[in-house]
């Protein structure tokens, strides 16, 4: 356990949650967990949530294909802007991204993928958006970083890369460009 004093000190500067090496191991481990439950992905599809979940979805998709030696795994991107519950309630306008799901999800097992699980509101709108494409057999949720104890809705992830404790004034920055890393920042660090 970290003592209170050192805990506060650490808050002073950005804290690296996952460096590129640990990030790589985490993604590989998540892929293995998915394979344990979904085998060869014959009846399972991956859906990355726009805008920030799609890079993680791409990485996982590539890793799964590598392990399963080139098996065909469907990958789509879902934009939830029109389903958000904070339309007209936020200061910044919502920026809409593209939805590309060019396969049927009816009766499929769907794994929704996002980078950070915080209040749970994005994935709530994600589930609403997904249902408009059909009735999946099962929906699971994979997330790289779970900011626990900060949920505003009764939602939890099925697969978690790393669980962190954080406060409202902090932000998790996921960078998956090149090797990538994940950092916990205080918002006025920027």
């Amino acid at each position, binding site marked *: 356990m970290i003592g209170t004093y050192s805990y506060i000190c650490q808050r002073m500067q950005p804290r690296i949650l996952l460096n590129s090496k640990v990030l790589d191991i985490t993604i590989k481990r998540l892929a293995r967990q998915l394979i344990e439950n979904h085998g060869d992905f014959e009846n399972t599809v991956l859906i990355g949530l726009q805008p920030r979940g799609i890079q993680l979805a791409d990485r996982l998709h590539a890793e799964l294909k590598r392990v399963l030696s080139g098996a065909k795994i469907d990958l789509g991107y879902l934009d939830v802007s*029109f389903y958000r519950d904070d*339309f007209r309630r936020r200061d910044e*306008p*919502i920026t*809409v991204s593209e939805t590309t799901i060019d396969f049927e999800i009816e009766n499929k097992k769907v794994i929704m993928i996002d980078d950070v699980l915080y209040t749970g509101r994005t994935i709530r709108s994600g589930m609403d958006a997904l249902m*408009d494409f059909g009735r999946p057999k099962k929906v699971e949720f994979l997330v790289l970083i779970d900011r626990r104890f900060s949920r505003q809705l009764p939602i939890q992830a099925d697969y978690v890369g790393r669980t962190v404790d954080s406060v409202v004034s902090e932000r998790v920055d996921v960078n998956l460009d090149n090797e990538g890393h994940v950092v916990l920042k205080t918002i006025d660090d920027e």
Partner: protein
Amino acid sequence: MSNLSVDHLLGIKGLSREDIELIFTTADNFKDVINRPIKKVPSLRDITIANLFFENSTRTKLSFELAEKRLSADVVNFSASGSSLKKGETLIDTVNNILAMKVDMVVMRHPNPGAAVFLSRNVNSRIVNAGDGAHEHPTQALLDTYSIREKYGDVEGKKVVIVGDIVHSRVALSNIFALQKLGATVKVCGPQTLIPKYIEDLGVEVELDLRKALEWCDIANMLRIQLERQDIKYFPSIREYTMTYGVDAELLNSLSKEVTIMHPGPINRGVEITSDVADSDHAIILNQVENGVAIRMAVLYLLAEKIAR
């Protein structure tokens, strides 16, 4: 930038190029939505929209209503026939009475030019102009240019001729503004009597010869002859108009290039274009109608975003 610079959609004239492009990218997403099994999103579920049509309309009214319902807004409809207007109520009174019933947005078509601008200054609501007399019809111009962008990838540098009754046409004026803002070149073509006198001041050229205009252009937007607005005779007969300014398959095939045919509807088949042209691969008339719903969804969505709670 992902916010409109205006609070109402009164005409294309008041929009910036960035506004138009934002509406287009938003419409791309809505076009996706209306091609899904469930063609509906919940964005405007707490918004009520009144459609006030003081003039007849089928397509535009239907298109707006569909757009509103696909955004999950509550919709009330009003048309001039059978209303208290006949009893002498003023426009502001009519609209304020409707707004007193807690309506957030008004979509209005009106026979008087400037009715939408007038309303936006006098009542407290978002106004979408669905056509005001011979002034503007912004959503039509947006869906027309959007359809050109869809077919050619870009509007920039395209040559467009608008053929027919320019003087009575709000579609022509809005299209000229929209096309020019997006970098297209515009000519108008029609009988001299149906071309407004100082139209060159808008930066458009007048071409009286239909064949020359078609040889020049990439896209021809064929307007309807508005028989209901011909209070005096502008040309000797419909038959003569058709012979001089009607497009048929023979004329199109004799051109040295492919020309895309657009029409804002309703078509007078056999007057401005013949049936074989309207139903041919040259025509993108039904694409225009489909895009109309997506464009109107985008406009309503982006304006609703600016309503303070």
